[in-house]
């Protein structure tokens, strides 16, 4: 890493609101180890005090500072300036899948509404609170999620097809997986996955897995096993027969 570099970088940042906007260029002096969020802060304090950026921890733990850097969804606090080509402007745009509020800040409230649909953890009756680390490991992967919503941003079902009403998105498959695979959970969320979260719309292109800053194997470890559960629950001929008989008995 170069010590005390005096070079500048050019940031090309979207400025605007829901009515529209355009990118504006800012020159930023480079500092060793600088991340894109540092550069945005420099712009705020020296050139554009009202530049809207959402951020909290600047340590990759809260998932607030998501944006599209050179066209790729990223956490700006974990994107090093020295990892980007500096001979051309670095473009920084808000997440495309969500409505712009101002500059880099988008309206992500839809995600919170989806989350509310998911039934919470329900311990099985007479639960003994003992768990094996191996069973816990599998679920802890999903619980690493910092809700940066980059997976939602990149998912073409939301980003290109705008199916927010029919589809929950990768984040909420990860969340549902964390509940479904919890060693002590007793609820079933298969109907929710099929009917409300529209898991069938996902055609496993793995774009979500690629952008996850926590390296969660969203597609392989969460979505595919959940799809299998839905198939088992709704399309397994043997189970359908059992259900029919059980249903008949109840009547």
């Amino acid at each position, binding site marked *: 890493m170069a010590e005390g570099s005096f070079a500048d970088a050019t940031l090309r940042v979207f400025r605007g609101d829901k009515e529209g906007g355009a990118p504006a260029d800012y020159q930023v002096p480079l500092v060793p*180890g600088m991340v894109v969020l540092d550069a945005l802060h420099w712009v705020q304090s020296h050139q554009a005090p009202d530049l*809207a950026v959402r951020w909290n*921890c600047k340590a990759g733990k809260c*998932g*607030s500072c998501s944006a599209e850097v050179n066209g790729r969804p990223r956490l700006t606090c*974990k994107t090093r300036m020295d990892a980007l080509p500096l001979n051309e402007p670095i473009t920084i745009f808000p997440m495309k899948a969500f409505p712009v509020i101002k500059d880099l800040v988008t309206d992500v409230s839809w995600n919170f509404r989806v989350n509310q649909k998911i*039934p919470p953890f329900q311990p099985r009756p007479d639960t003994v*609170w003992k768990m094996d680390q191996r069973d816990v490991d599998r679920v802890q992967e999903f619980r690493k999620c910092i*809700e940066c919503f980059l997976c939602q941003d990149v998912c073409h079902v939301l980003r290109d097809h705008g199916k927010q009403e029919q589809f929950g998105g990768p984040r909420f498959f990860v969340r549902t997986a964390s509940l479904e695979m919890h060693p002590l959970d007793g609820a079933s969320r298969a109907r929710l996955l099929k009917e409300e979260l529209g898991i069938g719309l996902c055609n496993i292109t793995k774009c979500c897995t690629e952008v996850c800053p926590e390296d969660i194997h969203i597609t392989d470890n969460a979505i595919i096993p959940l799809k299998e559960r839905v198939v088992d629950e709704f399309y397994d001929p043997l189970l359908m027969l059992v259900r029919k008989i059980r249903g008949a008995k109840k009547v």
Partner: protein
Amino acid sequence: MHEHDVLIIGAGGAGLRAAIEALAQGVRVGVVCKSLLGKAHTVMAEGGIAAAMANVDQSDDWRTHFRDTMRGGKFLNNWRMAQLHAQEAPERVRELEQWGALFDRTENGDILQRAFGGHTFKRLCHVGDRTGLEMIRTLQDRGVHLGIDVYMECTITRLLKDGDRIAGAFGYWREQGRFVVFKAKSVIICTGGIGKAWKITSNSWEYTGDGMALAYDAGADLMDMEFVQFHPTGMVWPPGVQGILVTEAVRGEGGVLRNKDGERFMERYDPKKLELSTRDVVARSIYTEVREGRGTEHGGAFLDISHKPAEYVKRKLPSMYHQFLELADVDITKGPMEVGPTCHYMMGGIRVDAETAQTSIPGLFAAGEAAVGLHGANRLGGNSLSDLLVFGRRAGLAAAEHAKRSEMPAIDSSQIEEAAQQMLAPFERPDGDSPYAIHDDLQGVMQSLVGIFRDEEDLRQALSKLDELRARAARVRVEGSRLFNPGWHLAWDLHSMLTVAEAVTRSALKRRESRGAHSRIDYPGLDDAWGKKHNVVVKKAGAMTLVETPVLEMPDDLKQLLAEDSGAK
């Protein structure tokens, strides 16, 4: 205008736990937070929750936890809070598990506990090095499904009163910049700490001391404001990441501190506990090594965990592994980290009753880092997450009970108009300083003059500089519109930061001794007289005034407990 029985300001661990408890009492609960839900500072807590569950060390019990907490706090703690905390923490952790939290496990399938500085036994229930994330996600989902109304990205700038009692709060929506009034019978402040007044800090932008300033402006007492914790291990290189936390769990898992000569210097400062000494001692030791010329290239110490198997390090400290690899080009399974002290936690805060968390203002409560009492002069690692749960719950319960026996207060419009005018003034000034420049200078003053080591001259100089900064902040100018305008947001946060910075500096000047996190070069030893009293900061006729109050007398059975040996093997 929104109306609630209980209004909670802040949606970190304390605020959410308070909300869950208040809701369970059958009252209407609203939670206001400056960020999106789930982004509060609790999310950054790494090492664990301290609770004497005795899953790993069977000799542990609340008495030992109580004793460790009091000793770590140099006996300035509120003994009753320390007792309640030690007694109730295990149940609060079990509750989290029953709400879906997934902790690391022992061989027997119980919650695993790890060693931490100042704790006699292995006591910290943890999830790798992301315990805070697990805690906030669990509380957030529990709260949302129980039916809490959450007002996200909303900043409170003033508490409203009806005579002497609390009546609600005034604030603005960060998104659109419109104003909002909340009417409530009880208000709980759970706004966390003040680290953003320092340059090198592990704290997020939210930590601007809002709750303490709100309470102080409304007439409540602040106490022990001189006790600011500098965490021994923050990142020091590269410059962009300076201050980012390196969890104490690195040392808990066996990490060793060395100076540039390769010496394990903690052998000189605390030969018994070494790296797992209390945070005040380790932070001062690193600082001293650097000051005496034995620091690393970038002014820190080496922290090394690479003697442990690489797979173990990646499993127990995953975010540290990634943090150093991605931000500093260091593979911690192969070589040492460079670390140095970073402003981390506020022991001082709003003075509250131990049992109910109520302040001196009827209907106003406070819990978590914003409140004072549990930690005394120095907090032990792991005691903050348990603090949030124990006293968050107690505050929620007491606030709900208070609301049930109270009528809805009245709010006169003059308070609201005044609060609105105060917020709009920075737009109307034709010239004045940028809020960013004032903030930068404030951080410089606190970093260089009110840091780990203090003396009379520095503190006096800091007070006069704070006067100048306050004058500049009164003329701060904001550009742009009210639509999501960070410059405008910061302009108000400056008021909070300057208020707490002054309270810290005045209290530090007054306490002429060194105790816990407060180190005076000119008064290096403990002073028994100061061990019996607290500094209380209160607003009198518009001016910041300090008064002394005695440390609460402990009952004999607890005194006996403290006199006993630690029980450590």
